[in-house]
């Protein structure tokens, strides 16, 4: 059922102005642009950066804290730290006794986390991963420029697109 779902139409309100890609020296992001063109993870992160107000995005494995891909700015300056710290937060959410109380299927019971700060939005979207203890998309947005509803809808579509055959 999940696999048959049609891809959602890309957001009309997307602008390219936030498309700043900073490949970390020696980081993972650099690895993906080589070889046979843009990869699934890269493309997903670049599209996340096209959402209005996007400042940084990452795809992170939440058990290990492995950054599978990073793009844009990192809150605090270090993408690796952001990946490790958001992974700890994501794990606490995914395994929380209250949030998992009525869990009825595989994968994390929690689907999304929204943290609103004075200056920004931090969004976490868990994806249905190939193996348990999977990954989440993280998106950091500027609160002045971003549209929270639009960003959440966009992130949801991107997370589905990652694992959509």
């Amino acid at each position, binding site marked *: 059922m999940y696999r048959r779902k049609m891809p959602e139409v890309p957001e009309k309100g997307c602008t390219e102005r936030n498309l700043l890609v900073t490949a970390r020296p020696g980081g993972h992001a650099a*690895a993906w642009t080589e070889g046979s063109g843009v990869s*699934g993870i890269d493309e997903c992160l670049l599209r996340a950066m096209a959402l209005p107000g996007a400042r940084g995005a990452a795809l992170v494995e939440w058990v290990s804290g492995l950054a599978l891909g990073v793009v844009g700015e990192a809150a605090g300056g270090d993408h690796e730290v952001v990946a490790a710290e958001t992974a700890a937060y994501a794990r606490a959410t995914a395994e929380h006794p209250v949030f998992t109380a009525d869990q009825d299927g595989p994968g994390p019971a929690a689907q999304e986390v929204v943290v609103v700060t004075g200056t920004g939005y931090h969004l976490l979207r868990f994806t249905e*991963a190939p193996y348990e203890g999977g990954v989440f998309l993280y998106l950091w947005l500027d609160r002045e420029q971003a549209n929270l509803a639009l960003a959440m809808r966009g992130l949801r579509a991107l997370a589905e*697109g*990652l694992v959509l*055959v």
Partner: protein
Amino acid sequence: MSQAAAHSPVSPMLSRLAQERATGVLIRDTGTLYLADGEVVHAESPAAPGIEVLLTAGGRLSPEAFQEAVAAAGAECATGRWLVEHRRLAAGELEISRLGALHDAAYFVLSPGAGGQSRFRHGVRHWFGSPGGVPVAAVEGEARRRRLLLESLWPHPRLDAAPVTAARTALRPGARPFLPRRQAALLGLADGVRTPSAIAALLGRPAFHALVDVRRLAALGLVETPRGSARTPGRAPAWFQNIGDDPDAALLRRLRVALERL
């Protein structure tokens, strides 16, 4: 582990191969690293489940579909591409699994305690195929970060290779605190014989995830922390190390571990 040891390159040979932009396979006692143009494209270790286990465990890909892909494209080293082109897997999903398996196995291959000779066979490619590699420095950095993460959870490295034994408190009904489902599943398989790697293979998870959960369970007092002398994985005998000249050595090593698990 001292701070100095944590930041020195794990394998000087690997750094040299990266500089030379070498293509081939690095064979160590702990597993193998496949390089293409000096970047790591694949890793295998007897201690970590292979990518086929991770891909098929969650039910997203059937073992039959995987066999079909290997039969059709394994000889051309394009199994992964075949799976995506024939719409068995999404490109993103494949990459997540490939990178997850790579860093999982590389953590064991690059473990500082690994002894024996490293050998490199030029020109060898992996049957799975890969669109892009990860720089050696990034793979080593991630392995280092993982070691520090485990240290911060519960500083008892012996837990990584020792059989997992559930503590008596964990077996008493009602005495157990709330456990997330993933940790409960692991504890359920802790029979005092299986190692974290064996449990990870049974559950179809990356082995490092099992190491993390075992450390957390030990910190909670639900898994026994081994005491006494260090129990490191046994070094392979000299005659066995020499079979590194054989391209199928990695297969033999995995076979040996699989037989030990029975």
